[in-house]
Structures are given as structure tokens and as C-alpha cells.
């Protein structure tokens, strides 16, 4: 009894984490389950188990084109926003300069702007400049809203960095560049990686802004939104679940590899 309650006391938070993750994954599990639905047109009601959707994930018209677009846009948006955002984060986090607080505000504004406003105002800009909505305008829109998230994430990490470590590096003959490369960057890297991951997730999952600026190009969320009216095909569930597992797998493998490297 005593040991049991001690076990509970010690693991209360872990138990909580399990509950919280369960909450996060309920709809994912639902999506996964219905990826095996022998659904026909509309994947709303359980009609029986089938492998067919997984065997032919691109079976529904457009779904894989949409996925391909989403991934391409996601990667490009991640690269650009991570580079631009990290640069800004370092400027703000590591330097004192005139206009620092207004820069801060400007970075924050896109986040404070509802997506619908962002999407609509950007579209009107493109049209003024005679640029047709589509792939690149979408990439630009995504870079725009991902960048602020990158800045915030990376800046937080920079702020947590003990300045004495950089001083120690400088003291040990590392010039600004080397100090950055050997000490600052490795210590900030987890923050940058997290920011990139977040950027990709945000881009990959965005619907509202994309809806304004993508013209007739479909993306995965757009595909789901438009199919919602006539029934989302089970292939969408297949792809949603597959992406989820892919993300997990990449990270777990990455984790295992770094641990192995550490051991050897």
C-alpha cells in the first residue's frame, strides 16, 4: 500500500503525461482506424475492414498531388523561414541595437494577425503586382507566418544560453565566427531544429492562408477541406496516418542513431 502510493506519487506526472497524450492522439487514432474503412465514397460510417486504402494510397483523385505540393511547400517554407528567422533571432537575442524593440514588435505582429487577415491582405498584394496565386505565392505566405514562430523559438533558446560560455570560447581563441560555430550554434541547435520542425508542421497543416493564395493548386489540407463536402476519401486518412508515423519514425531513428554514436 505504502509502496503503491509512493509509486503513484513518484509517477503522478508520468501518468498525467500518458493521459494528456491520449487526449492528443484520440482523433489521430480515429483517423488511423478509419483508414481501414471499406468506405466507398464517404468515410463517415464504419462499413468493414479493408487493406485496400493502404495498398493504393493515391487511389483517390488528386490526393497524392495535393500531398506532394504540401511537402514541397513545407520544405521550402521551412528552409527559408528557418534561415531568415534564425538570423533575426540572433540579431535580437545577441545584440543591442537601435530599433530593437520595434523590431521585436514587427516580428510579433504577424503572429498577432489572424490568419484570415494575413491571407487576404497578401492575396490582394499579389494581385496588385499581377502575380497569380499558386505555388510560389503560397511558399511566400508560409515563410511569412512561419518566420515569426522560428524567431520566437530560437530567441528563447538563445536567451537561455549562459553568456559566460561564449566568453570562455572567446577567451580560448575562438573568434566571433568560431565561437558561433563551436559553442553558440551547437547549444542553440536544438532550438533551431525545434523551430524548423514547427515551421514544417505549421506549413504542412495550414489551410486558411493557403486557401487564399494557392489559386487552383491543391494542398493536402485544401484537399480535405474541399472533399469534406462530398465525403473525405479513406485515402486521406491513410496519408494523414502515414505522415504521422513517418514523423515519429524519423525522430525515433534519429534518436537511436545519436545514442549509438554516443555509446561507441
Amino acid at each position, binding site marked *: 500500500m505504502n509502496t503503491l502510493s509512493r509509486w503513484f506519487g513518484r509517477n503522478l506526472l508520468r501518468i498525467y503525461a500518458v493521459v494528456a497524450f491520449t487526449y492528443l492522439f484520440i482523433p489521430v487514432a480515429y483517423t488511423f482506424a478509419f483508414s481501414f474503412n471499406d468506405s*466507398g*465514397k*464517404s468515410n*463517415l*460510417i464504419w462499413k468493414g475492414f479493408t487493406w485496400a486504402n493502404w495498398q493504393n494510397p493515391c*487511389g*483517390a*483523385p488528386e490526393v497524392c498531388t495535393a500531398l506532394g505540393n504540401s511537402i514541397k511547400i513545407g520544405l521550402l517554407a521551412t528552409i527559408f523561414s528557418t534561415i531568415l528567422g534564425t538570423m533575426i533571432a540572433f540579431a535580437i537575442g545577441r545584440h543591442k541595437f537601435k530599433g530593437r524593440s520595434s523590431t521585436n514588435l514587427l516580428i510579433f505582429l504577424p503572429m498577432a494577425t489572424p490568419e484570415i487577415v494575413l491571407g487576404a491582405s497578401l*492575396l*490582394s498584394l499579389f*494581385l496588385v503586382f*499581377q502575380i*497569380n*496565386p*499558386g505555388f510560389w505565392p503560397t511558399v511566400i505566405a508560409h515563410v511569412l507566418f512561419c518566420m515569426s514562430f522560428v524567431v520566437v523559438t530560437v530567441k528563447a533558446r538563445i536567451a537561455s544560453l549562459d553568456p559566460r560560455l561564449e566568453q570562455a570560447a572567446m577567451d580560448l581563441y575562438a573568434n566571433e565566427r568560431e565561437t558561433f560555430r563551436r559553442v553558440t550554434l551547437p547549444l542553440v541547435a536544438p532550438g533551431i531544429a525545434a523551430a524548423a520542425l514547427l515551421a514544417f508542421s505549421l506549413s504542412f497543416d495550414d489551410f486558411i492562408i493557403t*486557401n487564399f493564395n494557392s*489559386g*487552383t493548386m491543391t494542398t493536402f489540407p485544401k484537399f480535405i477541406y*474541399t*472533399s*469534406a*463536402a*462530398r*465525403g473525405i*476519401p479513406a485515402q486521406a486518412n491513410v496519408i494523414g496516418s502515414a505522415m504521422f508515423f513517418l514523423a515519429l519514425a524519423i525522430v525515433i531513428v534519429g534518436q537511436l542513431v545519436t545514442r549509438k554514436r554516443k555509446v561507441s
Partner: protein
Amino acid sequence: GSGGGSSENAIRWGNWPLYLDVDDSGKNYPTLQAFIKDSGIDVKYLEDYNDNDEFFGKVQAQLKLNKDIGYDLVCPTDWMAGRWIRLGYAQKFDSANIPNKSNIVDTLAAPSYDANRDYSLTWQGIMGGFGWNTTKNPKGIRTLDDLFSPANKGKIVVLSEMRDTIGIILMAQGVNLQTVTEAQFMNGVDFLAQKIADGWIRGVKGNEYAEDLTSGDATAVIGWSGDMFILKSENEGKFDFAIPESGGTISGDNMLIPSTATPEAKANAEKLINYYYEPAVAAEVAAYVNYFCPVKGAQAEMEKIDPDLAASEFIFPTAKTMSNLSVFRALTPTEETTWTEAFQKAAGN
């Protein structure tokens, strides 16, 4: 047009969901595939026309600037087609390319917004009426009172298509849709707003109402004929549809070539329109979508496919049925704006 996303010999067709014949796998459109094969024109079929206002809202800025909107053929409902034509966003047909144009049924041949059918041809005719879940409404729904019966409380979905939803309410209130006044209209809107405020109505939606019926979230709707028959046949009679006793609405969705389509795309689109005006093709589409078929001679072709459907009042309505259906009168631009605003406001927007 300028720019033009459409490559040579390919066109992009934006249409409503559940609006084209599909084979059993749910992936192929037989009539469309036949056309692609025969004509060599590649057609990209996009089922993303969910709502007239929404679609217009999305493309109107490009139309105004004459930038490619991403479609070479679109399918707005009558009143919206009228707006496109009035604003110069539709291209005039080259009649030579559409010899089958003459196959259009007489009742649809000369609408007010396009008396000579120079810019538009009906894709399907739509009847607005009541749809319901038969287990929850065993006696069916014929009147507004049936619709607002306690069993359906909180599970009613009505169309975001203003003319259908308010039209049916107005007719139940004895109003003539050809002469409806602003006061009468606002009365109808108030009725709707009250029902929403009292928690009867779960949603004011576009074509998604069909999904809500399927999932069980909705037990009764104001919906469209064809969709309901598809649901009925796909779910072994679990759903049914009827024209209200006090009258239903009738309208048409029209094929129309946007001003931004290139000449090549326009020509190809015209070939497609012509193709779908062949009675046999039209019958094949109608056999699937179950909407009011606008093509003369299709009924005869339908006999070959499914005699039951050939006799359907909803696909090939008789004069008696037609007499219980009304067309919403054309609105002035100002009316259009204020009435839509009032309706949207009632819907919570």
C-alpha cells in the same frame, strides 16, 4: 485572358460535388473519360464549387484584374451566372462549336439573365425541398411544421443557398417568389433567425448537409433533389426527399466560360459543353446525379438505361410537378447585397 495556367488542349472544370456520374470504385467519371478519350482534350475535374458566394468571393479579385482564376469552365447557379454575365466575367459562346445547344428544354431556353443562352447553358436543374432520415421521421416531411417537429430539434440543417432556404420558408408563408418584397423577405429571414436562436437548427451549410445526414448529425434538412436521391439509393432507403406541399424551389446551375480562359481553352470547353448536351450523355449523367435533366431527348435515352428513372418526376418533371416549383425572382444588385447580408447575419455570419 492573360497568363493562362491551362496548357494546350487541357481544360480545368470547377463543379459542385456529387454532380457527375461516378463508377462503382468512386474514382472514375465514365462520361468524362469517354470525352477525354475521344476528343484528346485533357480535362481536370475539380469538385470544389461548394457554394456560389464562396466561389465568387474566391475568384472575383482575379476576374476583376483579368488574371487566370484557375478554371476554364465553372458552374454557377442562375442568379450568380447572371452576375458573372452582367459584370462581363463570362465569355460569349461560339455557337458553331455547340450545335447541341438547341437540345435545351424549352423551360430553360430563355432565362432573364441570358435570354439567348449566349453565355450559359444549364448543367442541371435543381429542386429545393425537404430531405429526411426515414427512421427518425417515419411519416416523412411535407410541411415546415413537419420539419420543425420535436424529434428533429437541434438536428436540422438548412442550405446556405439563400434562395432555396428562404424561398421554401416564404412559400410556406404564402409568399410568391416572383413578386417577393423586401419586407416579406425579411419576415422569412426573421423566421429563420428565430429558429436558429431557439436551437432548432444545427447548421446553415452548402453541400455538406449531405454528410451531416449520413453521419447522423442531421435528421432533417432543406436540401437538393439529386443529392437526396443519391443518398437514398446508397443507403437502402434510409433517406428520402419531397417537394414541400406549399411549394419547392427550382433553379439551374450553368456551364459558363470565365473571361479569363484562353481562346484555346474556350474552344475546348465549348466542345465539352456540346458533348454533355448529347441526349445519351445527358441521360447517363442524369441517371447518376438524379437532377432535373436540361436536355431534350434524354428521357428517351434514359428508357434504355433505367425505365424507372425515365419516369421520375424529379428528373423529367411533368407540368404538374413544375407547377409546384417556383423560381426566385431576379434581385437588383442592391437587393442582392442587403438581402444576402441579412441572410448571412441570421446564419451567424
